């Protein structure tokens, strides 16, 4: 199905382009040149700068920057945060997308708006909300203190803030996909006698696996890279509540450029890996679509 549509629009494009400025080589070159220049200035140059600064005093200084205990504990905290947030948001995202696209219920549009909330709220505000809720001067602060529970300025606060910010990624990726797929397959499955759970595992999940993976990757990238919200709730305690992005800022402010860019290069590497996995997924999707068409 999908490939048919793709081929159809491809034909439409060719048909539309033919009578226009048909391949004026100059216009084409200018357009390509502008795109390449812009990409170079906005994406590639900054990326190269990160690696250049990180490595310009040699690989030893680079490794020292990454293996230094404070950097290492920041890396661990970032991995831990992502390891908690990504699975939780994946489960939530699938559940929400399934509910929204396969069922009719009251308050559905409200639920969609709520899922979008973290996209529209500034991360700093998100962090402040948690301080107002759980901070010593906040609504729950006195109770938490009395029960010796520390949320803000500790790992739970960082996880909560990251959870909030990365909340929409999986759901937002799945909802349009599942809407396009409709409920036909599920209806067929149920009418053939499968239960709801089995229908989900055997019919819905295989249909959405690539979209789901894509959403998980984006969610993970943001969970590891989040700065604003985490900065507000972190407390910046070395070895304890500094995530990688926060550690980069601290190192930079302390004139430790090599170490700062070394840690930053790890985050950049993560982005590159994300990009590679995303490309691999897209080509896998295209391949499976071709197979389905044959």
């Amino acid at each position, binding site marked *: 199905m999908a490939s048919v549509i793709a081929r159809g629009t491809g034909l439409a494009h060719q048909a539309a382009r033919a009578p226009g400025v048909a391949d004026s080589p100059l216009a084409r070159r200018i357009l390509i040149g502008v795109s390449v220049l812009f990409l170079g200035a906005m994406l590639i140059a900054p990326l190269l700068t990160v690696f250049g600064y990180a490595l310009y005093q040699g690989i030893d200084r680079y490794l020292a920057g990454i293996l230094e205990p404070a950097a290492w*504990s920041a890396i*661990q*905290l970032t*991995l*831990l945060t992502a*390891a908690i947030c990504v699975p939780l948001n994946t489960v939530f995202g699938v559940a929400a997308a399934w509910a929204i696209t396969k069922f009719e219920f009251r308050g559905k549009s409200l639920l969609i708006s709520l899922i979008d909330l973290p996209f529209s709220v500034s991360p700093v505000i998100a962090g402040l909300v948690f*301080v107002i809720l*759980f*901070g*010593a*001067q*906040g609504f729950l*602060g006195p109770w938490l*203190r009395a029960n010796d529970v*520390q949320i*803000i*300025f500790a*790992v739970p606060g960082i996880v909560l803030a990251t959870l909030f910010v990365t909340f929409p990624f999986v759901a937002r990726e799945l909802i349009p996909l599942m809407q396009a797929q409709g409920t036909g397959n599920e209806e067929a499955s149920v009418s053939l006698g499968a239960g709801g759970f089995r229908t989900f595992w055997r019919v819905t999940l295989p249909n959405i696996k690539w979209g789901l993976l894509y959403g998980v990757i984006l969610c993970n990238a943001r969970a590891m890279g989040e700065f604003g919200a985490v900065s507000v709730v972190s*407390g*910046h*305690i*070395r*070895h*304890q509540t500094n995530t990688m992005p926060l550690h980069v800022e*601290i190192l*930079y*402010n*302390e*004139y430790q450029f090599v170490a700062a860019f070394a840690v930053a290069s790890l985050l950049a590497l993560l982005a590159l890996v994300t990009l590679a996995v995303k490309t691999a997924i897209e080509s896998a999707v295209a391949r499976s679509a071709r197979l389905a068409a044959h």
Partner: protein
Amino acid sequence: MKRGLRCGLLGALCASLLAGCGGSDDGENSISLLNVSYDPTRELYQDLNPRFAEAWYRETGQNLSFRMSHGGSGSQARAVIDGLEADVVTLALSFDVDAIHQRAGLLPADWQQRLPDNSAPYTSTIVFLVRTGNPLNIRDWDDLVRPGVQVITPNPKTSGGARWNYLAAWGYALLNAPDDLDEEGRQAYARDFTARLYANVPILDRAARAATNTFVQRRIGDVFLSWENEAMLAINELGPGQVEIVVPSVSILAEPTVAVVDAIVDRRGTRAVAEAYLNFLYTEEGQELAARHYFRPRNAEVLGRFRDQFPPLNLFTVDEMFGGFGEAQRVHFDDGGEFDRFFERSR
């Protein structure tokens, strides 16, 4: 293959969880302190903490570990108010520690009288950084208002540290106002002087760090106003030979203050060690470490040993010149204050 991958991921997760839990105290014989400080003290305490821990171990047999938090002084105070469990705070100015008393009541109103020298074991002041060789022959504050001299200083509305630059200039002008002026006339003279200085600022950066970049890396401007300790740190870190320090005839005395946070040490049972820690800052060893990390020590003998590093100058305090930092904040930096008024006019 798939299972192997999954096990690997689980293993990594468990390892990081375990590592995350590893930092807690184990047993009677160890104790930890959280020192919530501001940005430029990082190296001082990195150097000082292990020495105090060693002294504490010799005295009590207790293993002491430190946790440090650095950030902007105002936002660090805010974090303590909101529940960051600081045993001690070592912040840029008493105003921020006062806020912890006023807004959260974590320490008493008279906290500043509990330690010598206004609870400020080390001090700093505002000096000038100029290009090597001092090509424009900048000697004192008057040279900063000369036409054509470009001064780099951050916006005092957004940078806490930069308020001291502003107050130092204003205070200098008050001290050098013509004798025949009355109080109002002296203030008007100081306002005019400070306005002329800020008219020479080509770029008003948001924060001290950005302003340092403007001056040192982008090479914009002739004079950079800076805290003395940060100027020395910047020269040291960014490579000597590009810039040098000029100490003016008069400047402002900056008193970074330290305090034990009573409510927290009493709950955590760390009062004795926290008090001993702050007292250590006043010992000869502590003073020497402060001097080595570019803060002016209070101890005259130690200061004498670092004479070359800290040339003498006349220093005035915020209290005597402006009636306290709170009052200075209200008059000069709050919305609609002195800075806003002359800055609006100059646009």
